[in-house]
């Protein structure tokens, strides 16, 4: 704001008063009071055994569960992203059959609950006791016991990964379509084939649009993994609930699990913002931002 006083008609200095925004201050004070009160009421609540929370925070089974949660989330996200890129490209293909199938895939996997998909894959043996891959009209082929192939881990990967892929396909498609048409034209004009253009020019730029929702999906995947209890998986939430089922410290163990989820979310959010900064809109600006943007950038780099 203004740093110097005004000069009056006869050369005298007229001071500038600083305004206090009373409304703002009041709003802030009320908000802080409410939050503080909520925290206080939780902390001193005689019905919550905070000593138990502390005791179980680093319980072995909780730590095991965290590990499983992270492992499954990361792998399912990677699988979902790879498949999602493929589906997005199919969906944008000019071949009506392929793009129709991709649409069907997306609709099907977005349309059915993950829980059902997990139960379906895990219990595939109920429908098909053996998985047979053979050359038609011959006796040559391979055969597996479905239950041996479809472990809880495989089922979790398939259930979560295929489902996520359907959501990612839409995200990636939006990202691809958001890349300026001029980029594609320039690539073609330089003699690139459609595939090369996609790989070298379009996908790297689509990252900008893809990263933020991917971060969100990953964060919500951290919590979706709790569904693996139906495939006998032992993620954080399942383990926490098994503990409270035994000792009935429901609220305490939910707090333990929540604290860990919040920590994981905070870390994921941090990583997401790092990625966004690295590949985000600033790095892939399409129009010249003027002196200002350039200056900010070079400052950030310094």
């Amino acid at each position, binding site marked *: 704001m203004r740093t110097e006083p005004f000069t009056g008609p006869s050369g005298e200095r007229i001071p500038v008063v600083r305004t206090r925004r009373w409304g703002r201050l009041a709003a802030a004070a009320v908000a802080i009071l409410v939050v503080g009160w909520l925290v206080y009421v939780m902390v001193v609540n005689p019905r919550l055994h905070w000593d138990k929370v502390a005791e179980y925070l680093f319980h072995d089974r909780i730590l095991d569960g965290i590990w499983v949660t992270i492992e499954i989330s990361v792998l399912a996200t990677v699988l979902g992203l790879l498949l999602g890129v493929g589906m997005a490209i199919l969906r944008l293909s000019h071949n009506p059959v392929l793009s129709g199938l991709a649409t069907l895939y997306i609709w099907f996997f977005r349309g059915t609950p993950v829980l059902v998909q997990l139960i379906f894959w895990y219990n595939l043996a109920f429908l098909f006791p053996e998985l047979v891959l053979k050359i038609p009209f011959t006796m040559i082929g391979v055969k597996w016991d479905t239950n041996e192939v479809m472990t809880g881990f495989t089922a979790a990967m398939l259930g979560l990964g295929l489902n996520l892929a359907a959501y990612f396909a839409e995200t990636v498609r939006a990202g691809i379509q958001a890349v300026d048409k001029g980029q594609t034209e320039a690539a073609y004009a330089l003699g690139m084939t459609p595939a090369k253009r996609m790989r070298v020019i379009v996908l790297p730029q689509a990252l900008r649009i893809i990263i933020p929702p991917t971060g969100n999906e990953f964060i919500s995947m951290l919590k979706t993994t709790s569904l693996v209890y139906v495939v006998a998986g032992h993620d954080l939430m399942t383990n926490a609930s*098994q503990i409270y089922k035994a000792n*009935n410290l429901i609220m305490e163990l939910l707090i333990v699990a929540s604290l860990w989820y919040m920590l994981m979310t905070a870390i994921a959010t941090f990583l997401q913002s790092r990625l966004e900064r690295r590949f985000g809109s600033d790095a892939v600006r399409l129009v010249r931002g003027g002196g200002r943007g350039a200056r900010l950038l070079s400052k950030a780099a310094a």
Partner: protein
Amino acid sequence: QSLDGGSTEADSAGAAPAVTLDQAPAEEKAADVINAITPDESLAAKVPAKLKSDGLKVVSSIGYPPMELYASDGKTAIGFDPALARAIARKLGVKVTITDEEFNSQIPGVLTGRYDFVISSMTDSPERQKQVTFVDYVQAGAGMIVKKGNPAGVNGPADLCGKTVSVVDNGSSMELAEQYSADCEKSGKKAVNLLKFPGDQEALLQVTGGRAQATITDYVVAAYKLDDPKLDIEAIALEGTESPWGIGMKPDNQQLIDSVKGALDSLIASGEYGKLLAAWNLDKLAVQSAVINGGK
């Protein structure tokens, strides 16, 4: 409104107006027995006032036949536990509502006062006694379900070593399976490979799908499932596993605990309890008297 008025219409019980008691639903196998029960005047007089005004609020986790299941309308709870709850309510001369809750939401529901008691095939265990007080109403044992013809040759706990067994990941059958596994290891054999599931249907699916060789559950439930030809299974009782199941109530509500215990004792003494069990083909589960917190 003034807050210090203490506006609770305290124990002004007195001579309560006569209530029309609930009739058991038609599909309830013990409906005749229940509808014939009349209030016990001495018990009714001691019933907490809130029960008289609001009726008995019962919670049960429906979906565990024959103990608790839905009638064909999909809304009315029937089975032995609802039958007993209705019988107790009639004995006490109060109305009754039975609500379905997820199994693990039931104890919090009782503790927060949303429900008066839980009756839901709940094993009376010392851990649970720290939260609620039980009036034990049956004595039940565990059983195993295996595929028809018992292809894996599982006849008793000792045969489970090195096999895959599915259980519901809570409560007595899981503890039992863990104990068998420990026994296997003690005797130098392979441990039991335990798969834990949220519900008994998911656990059973592992047996019919061939992933698990057996599932451990309550014997009465296992026996009931035998009647379904689709499943293609047989049941094996596990001897020496009997433990009491209890009606869980908030420990500080002594008046309610006394009323429920009194009602159950009265039903046992009058033989109506036995008829209820017989109606659901569960005579094996009978107890001789209502015990408080009998679980070890």
